[in-house]
């Protein structure tokens, strides 16, 4: 799942990436506190004074409308959902948009399940069922109404390539 910005109509500050915000000290970026977007913003060097932390999505939308921030950063899904529900001509998705580059790579968030370590058998069984289900027309049908499509599918990327914990020799 990639990142996206909501900006005011016409994108007056010309913000198309986290890096654009970092490069323009006048630009103010809104986030929901406790989300990954906060870490992205920090990682690309956006100063604390340029960031407004909203407690939740509705407040962030109010903040955009009140002109408290120039852009709101969220996952593409959150952003699309907000714009759909807001039906506000004054707001639009920043296009084109490039995700934050962290350690030389574009950061992308992946959805995942968590298991207790002793439930290894359950994990393997679910993996097997998911492998059979993902990418079927049935799957794409079921998630379409939430704004997902083929673009968000992980493709060839495997969990092993994403999950490495410093303590883990896996």
């Amino acid at each position, binding site marked *: 799942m990639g990142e996206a910005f909501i900006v005011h109509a016409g994108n007056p500050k010309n913000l198309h990436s986290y890096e654009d915000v970092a490069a323009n000290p006048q630009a103010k970026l809104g986030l929901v506190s406790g989300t990954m977007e906060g870490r992205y913003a920090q990682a690309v060097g956006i100063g604390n004074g340029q960031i*407004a932390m909203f407690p939740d999505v509705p407040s962030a939308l109010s903040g955009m409308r009140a002109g408290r921030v120039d852009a709101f950063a969220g996952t593409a899904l959150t952003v699309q959902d907000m714009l759909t529900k807001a039906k506000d001509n004054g707001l639009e998705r920043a296009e084109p948009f490039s995700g934050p580059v962290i350690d030389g790579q574009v950061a992308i968030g992946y959805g995942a399940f968590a298991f207790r370590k002793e439930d290894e058998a359950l994990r393997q069984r679910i993996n097997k069922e998911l492998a059979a289900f993902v990418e079927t027309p049935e799957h794409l049908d079921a998630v379409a109404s939430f704004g997902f499509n083929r673009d968000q599918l992980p493709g060839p990327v495997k969990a092993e390539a994403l999950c490495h914990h410093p303590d883990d020799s896996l």
Partner: protein
Amino acid sequence: MVDYLPAMLSGLKVTVLLTLGAMAVAFVAAFAAGMARLSRRAPVRGLALVYIELFRGTSALVQLFWVYFALPLVGIRFDAVTAGILVLGLNTGAYGAEVVRGALSAIPREQYQAAWALNLSPAQALWRVILPQAVIAMVPPAGNLAIELLKNTALVSLITLGDLTFQAQTLRAATLESGPVFALLLGIYFLLAQTMRFGFRRLENRLAHGQDYGGVR
């Protein structure tokens, strides 16, 4: 716990700033509205009543929303700290106005009459005779309101301010150590509240000097 300190200290600064600022606003608002409630002019009384009931009758959280997010749409824009101080101050001031009104009404009519018979002007009577007596009765409830205000500052994360509670929540989310973080939060609020209680207690003792002999006029 040492790792928490920088974040908690920055939150503490915001909380203390908001509390002190809002106390100042509340002080002015409470006296203005409390005295206006006793005015002989009906429009003045009415205006004060509208203010008091508007701020007492709606929640501080909703007031914050309106001032920070809605007022800019009609061209009135306060930065987050000013909006927080203004809303929390006016909110507390609305309760304070009733404290002021109550204390002023509790002064016997004979005190006004004595001041009148000595040819003091109404303003002189108020400042020299009535207020000095009424203020003593205002201090204990004002102390309660101030501590209530301190705890109300936790609402300002709605308007993007990183107060103590917000910083604690962020730390909790980052470390998942709810116990220690909340223990620290509890300790800091308790110390702040005790400091305020001590301050109000001293103020009360100072003002009451000379009047603690039975109180018969």
